[in-house]
């Protein structure tokens, strides 16, 4: 099932540009879909499996992006090294924050992560000398993978597709590892997990850092691909959108999160024509899914399908 899903994703990503050659929608929207899949899958590890909400995840996305942007333009660092620096920064911040922030629960955790996201956003807007302030900063050089420059749409599509598959594969493995099981125990009942010998603080810290790393990785790719970054791409609304993706697909399902990211990004790109209605549709979607299908579209629908399939099978047997 796990491998099958990964293969479906890989084949789908490989076939799309073949079926629709030189198609703007596939190549450009595809890249954006891939980046959001990485973000959503990472956030899902924290929200879906560990049960910890984060309304400030765009901050880590932004840290990766700005680290790459600033280090490659202002200090002429090689892009891979800059990416590593961004990952180190996001990981370090997440690690320092994890203990005080993940001690909080429910609404307090929501407020704390939201506050963190806003503080980072204000820093991006205000540190004009470094980040270019609200206008952002441009002319970021293309990603350079040991001499191979990623500078065409098709190359970007390939790089992001590989990165996305890597992220999904990593996430699937983390979920089934010892840490993954510990996290699911934390979500069930932190107290019970503790009595069973799970170091819950450590497990939560680890998953927070990992999910920040996913976000920073996507951010670094985003900065190189767009060649331009501005604080708008890392605002509170983006954090909320990331949460929407995870929730829409279905929490605690890697493919659910990926499905949510794909659905919302494609919807976003298709609704550009109805710009004024986009907000309304986005909000209504969020409410309706949470009220009627709290386990998410992907999980809800696949459970429904499984139930229907079983019903058909049993009917066949009894006849």
């Amino acid at each position, binding site marked *: 099932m796990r491998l099958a899903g990964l293969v479906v994703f890989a084949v789908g990503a490989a076939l799309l540009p073949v079926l629709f050659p030189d198609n703007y929608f596939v190549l450009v929207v595809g890249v954006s879909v891939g980046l959001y899949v990485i973000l959503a899958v990472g956030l899902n590890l924290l*929200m879906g499996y560990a*049960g910890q*909400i984060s309304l400030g995840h765009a901050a880590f996305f932004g840290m990766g992006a700005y680290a790459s942007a600033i280090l490659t333009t202002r200090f002429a660092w090689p892009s891979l090294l800059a990416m590593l620096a961004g990952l180190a920064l996001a990981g370090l911040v997440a690690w320092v924050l994890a203990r*005080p*922030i993940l*001690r*909080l*629960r*429910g*609404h*307090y955790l*929501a*407020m*704390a992560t*939201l*506050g*963190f996201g*806003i*503080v980072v956003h*204000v*820093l991006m*807007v*205000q540190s004009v000398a470094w980040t270019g302030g609200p206008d952002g900063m441009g002319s970021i050089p293309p990603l350079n993978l040991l001499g191979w420059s990623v500078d065409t749409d098709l190359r970007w599509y390939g790089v992001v597709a590989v990165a996305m598959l890597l992220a999904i594969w990593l996430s699937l493995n983390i979920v089934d590892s010892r840490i993954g099981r510990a996290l699911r125990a934390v979500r069930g*009942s932190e*107290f019970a997990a503790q009595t069973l010998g799970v170091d819950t603080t450590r497990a939560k810290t680890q998953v927070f850092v990992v999910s920040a790393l996913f976000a920073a990785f996507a951010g670094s790719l985003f900065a190189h691909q767009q060649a331009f970054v501005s604080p708008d791409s890392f605002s*509170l609304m983006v954090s*909320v959108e990331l*949460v*929407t993706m995870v*929730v829409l697909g279905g*929490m605690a399902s890697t493919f659910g999160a990926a499905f949510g990211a794909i659905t919302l990004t494609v919807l976003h790109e298709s609704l550009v024509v109805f710009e*004024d*209605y*986009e*907000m*309304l*549709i*986005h*909000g*209504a*979607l*969020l*409410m309706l899914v*949470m*009220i009627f299908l*709290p386990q998410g579209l992907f999980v809800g629908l696949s459970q429904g399908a499984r139930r229907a399939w079983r019903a058909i099978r049993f009917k066949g047997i009894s006849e």
Partner: protein
Amino acid sequence: MLEQLFQFLVTGITVGSLYALVGLGFALIYNASDVVNFAQGEFVMLGAMTAISLVAAGFPLPLAAVVAILITIGVGLALERFAIEPSLGASVVTTIIITIGAAIVLRGVALLIWGKDFHALPAFSGDTPIHLGGATLLPQSLWVMGAAVLLVGLVRAFLNRTLLGKALLACSFNRAAAQLVGINVRVMLRLAYGLSAGLGAIAGILIAPITFSSYEAGIMLGLKGFCAAIIGGFGNPMGAVAGGLLLGVLEALGAGLISSGYKDAIVFVFVLMVLFFEPTGLFGHKSADRV
């Protein structure tokens, strides 16, 4: 220098009164339903924008204000009936996302009705500033502070002195027990949502002459109100009021002495510090988490 500080204090208390009213709304809803209503700021925006439109359409200000408050209360009740009631007992994450969704929907509707432009309400009693010990004070600030004192007093009296208010408080202490002694919890829920929507709308109308309003105006106001409620110790209505005033003053001092660009960061860093070191709030009572 002293005069300047006094000026910051006056500005801070004006804004703080607003945060206090929004925070009070947060606390009321949280008490009744264990839900943090992220659409609280949108009530403020709706109240302000509706009143502005009605005044522009030729309504006298008092009538426009009353109609705007009633419409916002209607929206609050609809939110309770169609979004909160069907998901009673859902997880915290679920309810947070539902109210965020509601906030986005309300913002989206406001965008369709009023567009992206900023709108303002005429001041209630003129724009001639009052000079007071070196600080200048807009008459509207007096309206904001006066109305906040009055409203907080009324809510306090309502909670402590009337049967209905006590029933609402009973729900916040223990919903099951409240139901057992014959309190209709659903009615209390609606009461809390209606009351908070009304408080939000009044806050919005009061501030609309000072800060211009737009479809997005509710986001930060709502979040600051949420901060006020957290600083005050969640579920403590008067703590939320104190928290709101504290935040307002802190923000004005930060904007004046450090940089106005960083004022939001200052507020949220303060809230983070409170959460890290005193998570039950500065004015709350300690309570342990049940398993």
